[in-house]
């Protein structure tokens, strides 16, 4: 399966980026072929809707699972509608998180925060 993680640098030892929408890069890792690549996140500099655009990028690359420390509700909406699974990263490197996912040690991301421009209810 294809796994995406927002990361700070373009190397295998990179740490996970604290933000999803404004991460500088995404690491895409294929657990079957063990191949990996890095994508530049064009949403990082957006004035608004960064989470949405970043989510669109993830969807367009046919990712199966997204690992992230946090996610806004707009982006989460896009990710879930596309049928992508969302897991919460642990404070360790990106590759360690992917390994943890593979052995079933990561939990689902349930704590979705409101977007900067969103409102709930009313």
């Amino acid at each position, binding site marked *: 399966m294809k796994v995406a993680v927002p990361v700070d640098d373009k190397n295998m030892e990179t740490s996970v980026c*604290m933000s999803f929408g*404004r991460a500088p890069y995404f690491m895409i890792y294929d657990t079957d072929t063990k191949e990996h690549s890095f994508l530049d996140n064009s949403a990082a*500099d957006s*004035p*608004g809707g960064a989470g949405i655009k970043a989510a669109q990028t993830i969807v367009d690359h046919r990712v199966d699972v997204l690992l992230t420390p946090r996610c806004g509700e707009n982006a989460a909406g896009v990710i879930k509608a596309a049928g992508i699974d969302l897991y919460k990263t642990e404070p360790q490197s990106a590759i360690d998180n992917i390994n943890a996912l593979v052995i079933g040690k990561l939990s689902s991301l349930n704590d979705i*925060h*409101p977007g*900067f*421009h969103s*409102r*709930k*209810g*009313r």
Partner: protein
Amino acid sequence: MKQLLILSGKGGTGKTTVAGAFISLAGARAYADCDVDAPNLHLIMKRWSEPERKDYFGLPKAEIDHKRCTRCDLCRQNCRFNAISLNDHYQVDLFACEGCGVCEVICPEEAITLQPAVAGELMLYREEDSVFSTAQLRMGSGTTGLLVTEVKKQLCEAVGEAELAVIDGSPGIGCPVIASLNGADLVLIVTEPSVSGISDMERIIQTAEIFNMQITVCINKYDTNLENTALIETYCAEKNLPFSGKIPFDPEAVRAINSGKTIIDLDCPSGTAVKEVYHRTMELLFNERCSIST
């Protein structure tokens, strides 16, 4: 690191005065001024070094190349923001332009391009033991919310080990306030006992609740209207909102501020009262940790 955000709804209630006092009392190593429109915190927090400065780019702005323009008027007709007008040439009002790109895409001659535009400046003050993040929006600019986000991001990236970040917010309930709410662990609302103050307090509370924020309230200049002060206390009790205390109206506070000091730096009634507000607020902010682990 816990983030305390200080808001008010109404302007002039004393957010920055209270923020300055809290920063001094806590010996806070991280603080930020998110009132990017009219930042004031730097006026009372003594800084010895020059800040690191960075241009802030908001939305790009349209630029029309007169040499290619054939005056078809399509751009002006389709601009929803009335940003294009015809004088000697077709011109873009840089303040009205929202960088949407409709004119760029609709121009049959490709005479319009969107250019990056500086909308403000970010400043980061670093001392040995603390970081202070602030910014100044260029007047008439938009994307205030994004600049607020940048101020907070700058703070979080620069701070090493810190237990507490104190964030001085802006008045109102719109985009800069909403942007400052994100990531805050507790919102302290500084209100004043006037009908306007109460009305504005209710609206900022509503706004903070929409975003599921934890809230506490304190009343500044409480003795200017005891009846309204009682109303506010009752309102908080009825809504089950924590109440952090009251600060009296104090001419000494103005003198402190005017000499670039916090109200803690002088021996004055408001300084004494704010200490109680500080303790109650900190209890609320850090107790949360305890309640989760049990």
